[in-house]
């Protein structure tokens, strides 16, 4: 359930942010989202996010690429238009297989890489003409923003965040 009121705490240093996240988590508050200008190493772990599953997706995309390569080369070079290149027998995929290995390899990599990037963008809800989600443009420059939902514990949270070194604390009404 998304709270309609959130607190935006702004930090100016990634180390301070990391310690703040640990503190907030240890006080058992839920962190909705953190916006940073660059990837902060270990932040996902500190926030308690689940490990990424993109590696599994990548493996599956690779398998798709490999299959596409095999089917494609079998159709092009064996069934549709067999060609005699370098005196190799051309009516059997298996006997010509070594010649197709580079293609199989490249398409595996191609599919894995491109589909993985596309998956990552979609999963991060980024697509063309998308309006930016980050609530404060300074998070694209040198500020870090932590978003915490408020459930009537506003003053307690503000106090806690101040202690962690936030330079600015805003209460925001997220109108839907």
């Amino acid at each position, binding site marked *: 359930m998304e709270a309609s009121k959130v607190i935006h705490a702004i930090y100016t240093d990634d180390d301070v942010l990391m310690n703040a996240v640990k503190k907030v988590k240890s006080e058992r508050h839920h962190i909705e989202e953190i916006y940073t200008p660059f990837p902060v190493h270990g932040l996902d772990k500190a926030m308690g996010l689940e490990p990424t599953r993109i*590696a599994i997706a990548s*493996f599956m995309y690779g398998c798709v690429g490999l299959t596409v390569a095999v089917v494609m080369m079998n159709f092009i070079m064996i069934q549709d238009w067999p060609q005699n290149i*370098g*005196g*190799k*027998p051309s009516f059997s995929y298996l*006997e010509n297989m*070594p*010649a197709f*290995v*580079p293609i199989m390899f490249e398409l595996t990599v191609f599919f894995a890489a491109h589909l993985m990037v596309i998956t990552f963008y979609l999963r991060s809800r980024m697509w063309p003409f998308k309006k930016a989600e980050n609530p404060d443009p300074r998070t694209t420059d040198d500020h870090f923003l932590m978003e915490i939902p408020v459930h009537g514990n506003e003053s307690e949270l503000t106090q806690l965040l101040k202690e962690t070194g936030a330079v600015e604390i805003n209460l925001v009404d997220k109108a839907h």
Partner: protein
Amino acid sequence: MEYKISNRLRMASIVLIILGLLGVGYGFWDSHQYQTEADVKALLASEHGDHHGDAHASDTHHEETSHEIADSHGEEAHAEDGHHAAEGHGMSHEEHVLHQIHNRPYAALYVAAFFFFMIALGALAFYGIQYASQAGWSPVLFRVMEGITAYVLPGGLIVLAIAFAADSHLFVWLKDGITEPGHENYDALVAGKSGWLNKTGFFIRGLIFLGGWSLYRHFSRKFSIAQDNADDNRNFKKNFRISAAFLVFYIYTESMMSWDWIMSVDPHWFSTLFGWYVFASMFVSGITVIAMITMYLKSRDYLPFVNDSHLHDLAKFMFAISIFWTYLWFSQFMLIWYSNIPEEVTYFVTRFQDYQLPFLGMVVMNFVFPLLMLMNSDYKRIPWFVVMAGIVILCGHYIDVFNMIMPATVGDRWYIGIPEISSILLFAGLFLLIVFTALTKAPLLAKRNPFMKESEHFHY
């Protein structure tokens, strides 16, 4: 922390050496049971029941360049017949088999000796790269690597000594008269290469290679130990400089060594990426052994500063270099397979005909297995998992060396029997003894290395 070799380990390696010596002795004795062609005839007759004709080994020894090469799918039988007729020097099949029987114990000894030597040399290259790249993650492993590289000099000298003793049992180009026109052993191709391939050159080069590598090893180790109690980083800087120089020297000499010590057993054949191929093999074996010895010492609490991120990185290297090896293996194969030039393709025809199981099995062990075992990030941190993958990788690379030497020396009369296994035992024992004794000689933490802090806190 000082390491003390346990008595059990010392005893075990001595037992391995003794068992190995006995087995190797038996191998030589056994091969000399066959003295004449008549003995071989009797042997072949007794084997005929289960051997069916394909005992006609495609003997790469005397492979004629003119002989027609069949495609890799089963017309080879003619090639073999045509080939005997084409041979200028009428050696009978029995005499040929007799040579192969006599070659086997030498070849078995050479394969195992080279395999263990290559582990140490691969570890030395890895060590040099760590210094030259000023790597921050690895200094906690330096003493383990230095222990392994202690085997470079003795191991290399043993390989050269076996090459010297085996002579034409391993290297056909050492036969008498092979470069003299008109002689019954005359071989125009070998004669053309004799400017490089000659006995004096072979051993002089071998000693230069070994000398260079051991000099680097000696000084690098010396500076590394001197750095322990130093007040500044002078020794580290020296190590950085000599490591960079060593790597340049190494990549040239390693390539030449692989032509000399391995590729020349098939003197008609050549492959331009052979040096890289052998390098990949030694690199991955060296890294695997570094990982295994690290895990062994850590399990004995000698390496409290090594954490599972270090193991993770070593396992990543095992994974990556296994793929690199496969890339070279396949590149070498595909170009030769595609161009189908007789003097090149015989190499793979022999391997597909007579060595199908080890040749293709090795690809499974060295590529498919590590690929699937070590792909998952979490598995790279589980010691027993890495050890299992490592054992398969090491066996696979032994078979790799086996496949490089055996087809040219024993043809289809290969078997992994007493001579091969005892040679492995012998050199495994020697390797363990030398490496673990070297580990006792210095503290296991290179404490004053400028990157030590970073390495101890290394966290992936």
